[in-house]
């Protein structure tokens, strides 16, 4: 056992002091003003929940990053790792008979284990919104629009939303064994054409589907790309995935479209996404500062089958970008 001075804090945790807090408050003020104006009501889920709340929908990746402890009665409890899972539980239980669509928003901390030495926080602020009970493309657009307007409202102009639809590749992956599907998922996520071509050549994938897989890393661009993608769609689910994105594209304004990159290799979100899925990238941040998408089957895992769509932004990352901009 090593003795450390009391001034140390555990790796990945930190104090926020006056100036940090002022900036955080400014972001929160802009966020709540916008969200409330759009009819989103704030909810504050508990800081810790039974771990199943996060493991049921979030998939193995989230499950491996929970900060857990044993509760008084011996059950495993986890610190909130994801607002969407908690809100899905609330919406499927206490709010099960509330009229839909339900518009909910939040801002607060999430806790996730990170490998030591990567310089990542284990405790971070997020803000976000969920719209529950609306399965339409108009619903997708409402949430995307709220995200875009939030970025502008907090004062970040140079950003791109990388928008995909997991239904384009899901049918291809579903026919494979777990290991093969995971290997292919990794190759799609890294845009590794050589690995995709090798997987196709290894033979588990039918020729038509193979061609779409190898082309997948090139299916990225503005709205025109979707026309080419439609030709490579295999099966009804993939075709309607493209149709959905084209419909979203038509519903967006030209100014909004300038912030959207369509990317059919965008599949890296949490396990519960079912339709559109996106990540937010901003100039000055090396990795995604926000994620979101549609999760039509998540609420069913908590007892009420409702379609839903939402997003979360990393508030700390927004604050850092604003600080960078102020220093220039």
């Amino acid at each position, binding site marked *: 056992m090593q003795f450390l001075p009391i001034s140390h804090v555990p790796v990945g945790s930190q104090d926020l002091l006056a100036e940090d807090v002022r900036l955080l408050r400014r972001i929160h003020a802009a966020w709540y003003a916008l969200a409330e104006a759009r009819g989103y009501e704030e909810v504050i889920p508990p800081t810790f929940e039974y771990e199943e709340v996060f493991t049921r929908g979030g998939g193995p990746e989230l499950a491996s990053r929970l900060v857990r402890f044993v509760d008084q009665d011996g059950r495993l409890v986890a610190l909130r790792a994801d607002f969407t899972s908690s809100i899905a539980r609330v919406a499927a239980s206490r709010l099960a008979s509330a009229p839909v669509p339900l518009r909910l928003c939040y801002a607060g901390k999430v806790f996730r284990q990170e490998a030591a030495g990567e310089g990542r926080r284990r405790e971070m602020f997020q803000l976000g919104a969920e719209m529950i009970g609306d399965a339409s493309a108009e619903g997708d657009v409402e949430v995307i629009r709220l995200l875009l307007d939030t970025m502008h409202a907090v004062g970040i102009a140079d950003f791109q939303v990388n928008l995909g639809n997991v239904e384009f590749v899901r049918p291809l992956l579903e026919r494979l064994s777990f290991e093969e599907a995971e290997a292919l998922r990794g190759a799609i996520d890294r845009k590794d*054409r050589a690995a995709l071509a090798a997987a196709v050549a290894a033979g588990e994938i039918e020729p038509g589907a193979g061609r779409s897989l190898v082309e997948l890393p090139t299916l990225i661009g503005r709205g025109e790309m979707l026309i080419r993608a439609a030709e490579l769609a295999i099966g009804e689910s993939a075709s309607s995935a493209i149709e959905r994105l084209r419909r979203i594209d038509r519903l967006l304004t030209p100014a909004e479209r300038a912030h959207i990159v369509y990317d059919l290799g965008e599949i890296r979100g949490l396990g519960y996404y079912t339709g559109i899925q996106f990540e937010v*990238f*901003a100039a000055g941040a*090396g*990795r*995604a500062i926000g994620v979101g998408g549609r999760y039509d089957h998540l609420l069913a895992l908590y007892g009420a089958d409702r379609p839903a769509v939402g997003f979360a932004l990393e508030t700390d990352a927004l604050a850092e970008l604003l600080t960078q901009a102020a220093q220039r």
Partner: protein
Amino acid sequence: MAPMRIALPKGRMMDQALELWDRIGSGIAPEQANTRRLILPSRDGRFEFLPVKPSDVPTYVEAGVADAGVVGLDVLLERRADVLQPLDLGFGACRMAVAAPEGQPYPDLPGAVTPRVATKYVESARRFFAERGAQVEIIRIAGSVELAPLLGLSHWIVDLVETGRTLKENGLVVVDTVFASSARLIVNRARHKLRLDDHQRLLAELEAALAAPALTTSSARS
């Protein structure tokens, strides 16, 4: 538009990468080649090359201070950086292998001995043996790994093998292959979206240059 920043691993792989960029018309001017400048501009101004330590390439690219980088798969798998990995550039080919002194049993040692494995590539070695369900003790060594089995520090080693000469000189033989390695183009996830057209153009150009028959490259010589 600001030039795209490309992190390159100092050493032979950097020369091979610069030759590749030369083939797409964006190499560096000859007088730049032997300077000690920290940032080398390409002749056409489209790129800035950052010569860094090979194991730092993924760090620069993951953080987004470089748009893209060139690095061996061996380094990449050891670092597990969260980056796009769109192209196998072909050069820098070698393999990560398990080697043992001639006559040393593999993969099982007689008796109840837990095999000790010396390596610089702790992460790759750990994953390789774990995937096979083999229990080994991994010993981190910073250099001259071949020495470890000779002195009895380890039974086997995991190391990068290019020609196999160093192994042979030390009485070691390859007993297993961990993976085949070569240079990869890696790309920052955020920069790829924020400058999508520039990135897609670079990918297409490099892909075309790699598909075209090479004239004289150092990879053909080695």
